[in-house]
């Protein structure tokens, strides 16, 4: 019903690839301490620190390549797109707010928005500085521990994603890594839209619970 539009030119199914992708998070030897990416981004924002940016480039470029390749980015434009995303990371680092998101979440949103730009779609976004925007009392004032907790939250999320049942992780993979709206997933998997919605909802509730499981 809420058709994503613009994504009807799907290639054939590659669910194995998506599942392999989800499972790959479980392989050993993947991570550097998550918090350091946030420090590096702040160093780029405040001091235009090239070495900090080189570390971000080294860490995120291969991840962006494989992430964007899953999203059906044509191989010929993949390198350009990765470069454009990293260029935005350098140029817009001062809009990164560690109280609001981890470095990888912020870079995910940059890659997402860049792909929407390329599709010549305009993404309507909330402007937090707009006087019409409503805030709650505590909105914008991070809890004392919030900044430190984004790294922890990322670890909890990683484990929660790895422990999703297969039918749910497949569908989360399609939503995030194949760029499919609910209705496109329904037709890809030949499932009723309601089933797709409830399965995704279940998965998201689990991930949300994991994220909130910080003490």
């Amino acid at each position: 019903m809420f058709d994503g539009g613009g994504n009807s030119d799907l290639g054939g199914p590659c669910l194995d690839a998506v599942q392999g992708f989800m499972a790959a998070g479980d392989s050993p030897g993947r991570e550097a301490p998550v918090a350091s990416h946030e420090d590096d981004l702040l160093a780029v924002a405040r001091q235009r620190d090239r070495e900090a940016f080189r570390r971000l480039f080294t860490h995120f470029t291969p991840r962006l390549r494989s992430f964007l390749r899953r999203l059906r980015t044509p191989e010929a434009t993949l390198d350009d797109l990765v470069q454009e995303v990293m260029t935005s990371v350098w140029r817009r680092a001062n809009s990164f707010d560690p109280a609001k998101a981890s470095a990888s979440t912020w870079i995910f949103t940059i890659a997402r928005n860049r792909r929407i730009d390329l599709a010549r779609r305009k993404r309507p976004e909330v402007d937090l500085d707009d006087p019409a925007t409503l805030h709650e009392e505590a909105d914008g004032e991070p809890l004392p521990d919030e900044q430190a907790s984004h790294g922890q939250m990322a670890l909890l999320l990683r484990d929660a994603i790895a422990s999703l049942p297969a039918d749910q992780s497949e569908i989360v993979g399609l939503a995030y890594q194949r760029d499919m709206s609910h209705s496109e997933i329904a037709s890809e998997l030949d499932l009723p839209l309601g089933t797709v919605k409830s399965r995704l909802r279940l998965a998201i509730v689990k991930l949300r619970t994991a994220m909130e499981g910080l003490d």
Partner: protein
Amino acid sequence: MNVSHHPEPALLLDYATGTLADPFALIVATHMALCPACRREVAALEAVGGALLEQAPEAGEADVDQGAFERMMSRVEALPPEPAIAPLPAIDTATARIPRPLRDRLPASLDNLPWRRQGPVETVFLPCDLPGHRVRVLRIAAGRGVPRHTHRGTELTLVLQGSFSDETGHYLRGDMECANPELDHRPVADPGEACVCLAVTSAPLRLTGTLGRLIDPFLDI
């Protein structure tokens, strides 16, 4: 005053992953401007995207080419600075209360929009690229109602000013009603203030009242 009617979770997820088509993304973003709870929800959904990016396998990717880094840096450092964000134009109070995602698309201030009046309801259509869909701003006179109707598709209605009630509840500023083909309703603006709404429909409405059946073919709401 808290928002109590939110978009369904599927809309927030498609917004977070970037697959939500424009008129729906517009109404979801405008709701989010008025709803900190949905902003938090979308931030959490984006964190899932961040975690998946962080986990993206590097296997099979060539080693990072440090030459590529140097080439990129020399290009990037030669770029002109990002243009400053345009300041908000001065606007009247009523228009200023329309959140930006929508306000940026209005061709004029609220009072100077090219309203088309049909009884107590005034309508302005906004451009919409999605085939079969319509995006419009409605202004319902205080205490008056929209003709009774059902829906051939989905109708999302977001309250921007004033409030209205129908068979399903009471909708205040920031609340979003999602009506599907089963719902037969007659929204009525509360007395005191005109009710301004953003509405997105995926198919034409169908009038169901006695009078409505007579005028349905002529009424384009």
